[in-house]
């Protein structure tokens, strides 16, 4: 689909109506969904009603904002009042939230048109969207490949033009990695910049909501709309939200860019390495000063994360007990039986695995050896970043060590799937903003992403470097060829 800027101008000049734009998205969805399965639910009636309201406002001579009338896909772990929200889990298959998440409320207020709820790994646990209880999503660049995860549906939908932008959530890379695999822009903001109210909790100290878009400008506009203090989220930061688009300038003169040495080691696909090195050379050509930076504790991120995130998840998912909402198993003899069987039937294998890991490492006698130690390692990783940002403005690395892998390629070995998040996890542990921008393709035509990491609340720097790079290259202008 066209950019937010183009669609906005069409609406303002009355060249197209919001209904026509919505219909374009819905027709595209109808055409490509049989191959992609990006959406768990297409909310066509809801979208057309929202578009009608926008058209009425325009007809009445009202001024409209950038996002008014723009079609968006919403990850299915964001609560939408009156619209089923499943987290791609059997246990929430028929859950209709009685309230609206802060981010979707803000977007509805801005006049955005929600076209559907996107597929994801169950409870956002996974790196390929394959743990969804309902369907597999294909990568628009090659339908035998995964779209990445956990926000794979949101990434595939934007890449394939089923909506202009979408929202995902990122706990260990779940926005940036699928953005990289699908050849689009994806951003995880600073922890606390965007309210988590109404986001179904996975690992509360790591979860953050962020945008997917075809361009850095679209991502910047959407981020501006969802960011900001919210009294309903106790971890929300009381900071002013700037107009992020005013940082989008093409010149990188004087900008200090650090290359994280440890992300170029073992396990990195040589084709990804070559393309990312070319991207770094491009940043230099744009005037940036390139420095090699060492983050020696970076590589311990995965181990720390797979203790911390499952610990938080095991506590957060205790609420699915078949009592207040969600599925309940029939004919249980007593309460304990009902809990155990409801959860056994309601959760998939990966969710069970993480609940088990979390329950084990938090159980009596193991707390110090695992959870407390992981929290201490988290401090060390944070210190590595703090030292790096004394020397540079942003850090760069590959977003993922490989391009999109085959559907079914890693499902039998859980640990191999965990290693996919090597580059992105430390950013969540330190609460920093990170973005993936398209930076090329491998020899099989699969997209590669460059990760740009900023200091706390320096989304401006991340977006500026991404924008300058994007404007100097042609990668973001390429479309996947779906038949």
């Amino acid at each position, binding site marked *: 689909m066209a950019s937010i800027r183009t669609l906005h101008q069409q609406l303002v000049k009355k060249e197209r109506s919001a209904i026509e734009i919505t219909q374009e998205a819905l027709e595209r969805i109808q055409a490509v969904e049989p191959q992609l399965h990006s959406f768990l639910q297409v909310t066509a009636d809801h979208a057309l009603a929202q578009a009608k309201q926008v058209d009425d406002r325009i007809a009445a001579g009202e001024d409209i904002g950038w996002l008014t009338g723009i079609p968006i896909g919403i990850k299915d772990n964001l609560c939408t009042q009156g619209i089923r929200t499943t987290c791609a889990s059997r246990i929430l298959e028929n859950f209709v939230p009685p309230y609206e998440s802060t981010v979707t409320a803000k977007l509805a207020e801005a006049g955005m048109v929600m076209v559907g709820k996107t597929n994801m790994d169950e409870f956002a646990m996974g790196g390929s969207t394959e743990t969804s209880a309902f369907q597999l999503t294909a990568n628009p660049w090659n339908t035998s490949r995964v779209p990445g995860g956990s926000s794979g549906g949101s990434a595939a939908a934007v890449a394939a033009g089923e909506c202009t932008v979408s929202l995902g959530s990122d706990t260990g890379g779940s926005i940036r990695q699928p953005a990289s695999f699908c050849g689009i822009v994806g951003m995880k903001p600073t922890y606390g910049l965007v309210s988590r109210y109404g986001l179904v909790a996975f690992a509360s*100290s790591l979860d953050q909501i962020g945008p997917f878009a075809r361009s850095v400008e679209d991502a910047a506009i959407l981020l501006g709309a969802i960011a900001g203090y919210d009294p309903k989220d106790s971890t929300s930061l009381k900071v002013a939200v700037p107009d992020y688009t005013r940082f989008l300038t093409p010149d990188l003169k004087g900008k200090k860019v650090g290359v994280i040495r440890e992300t170029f080691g073992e396990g990195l696909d040589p084709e990804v390495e070559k393309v990312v090195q070319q991207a770094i050379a491009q940043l230099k050509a744009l005037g940036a000063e390139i420095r090699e930076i060492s983050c020696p504790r970076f590589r311990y991120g995965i181990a720390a994360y*797979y*203790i911390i995130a499952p610990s938080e998840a095991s506590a957060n998912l205790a609420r699915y007990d078949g009592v207040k909402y969600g599925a309940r198993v029939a004919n249980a003899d007593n*309460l304990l039986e*009902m*809990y155990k069987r409801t959860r056994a039937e309601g959760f998939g294998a990966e969710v*069970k695995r993480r609940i088990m890991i979390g329950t084990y490492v938090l159980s009596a006698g193991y707390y110090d050896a695992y959870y407390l130690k992981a929290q201490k390692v988290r401090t*060390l990783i944070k210190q590595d970043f703090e030292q790096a940002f004394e020397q540079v403005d942003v850090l760069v690395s590959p977003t993922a060590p490989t391009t999109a892998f085959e559907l079914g390629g890693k499902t039998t070995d859980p640990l191999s799937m965990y290693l996919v998040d090597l580059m992105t996890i430390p950013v969540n542990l330190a609460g920093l903003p990170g973005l993936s921008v398209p930076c090329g393709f491998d020899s099989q035509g699969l997209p590669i992403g460059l990760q740009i990491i900023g200091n706390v609340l320096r989304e401006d720097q991340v977006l500026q470097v991404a924008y300058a790079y994007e404007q100097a290259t042609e990668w973001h202008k390429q479309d996947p060829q779906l038949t």
Partner: protein
Amino acid sequence: MLDRDQVHKVALLARLELTPQEEEQFATQLSNILDYFEQLSELDVAEVPPTARAIDVSNVVRADELIPDLAREKILENAPDRVDDFFKVPKIMHE
């Protein structure tokens, strides 16, 4: 290493009923994952303070005021089983 007995105990704590095959599979998989965690012992963390949240916001309070909350009926509509305005659960005590 985790054996099947331990997996069974953890599953009870987590309120998960696992099949014997799942117990067997999890014993292997969780052992592999716990082995992977061993690399953390390469780091000396004795003097390092823990981080629970990367960006800490503390003492977040609000005025204790009565405000209208969600409609009771809307909430109860999602309940798997109910009696009037109560959530209904299977019996808690054994015979």
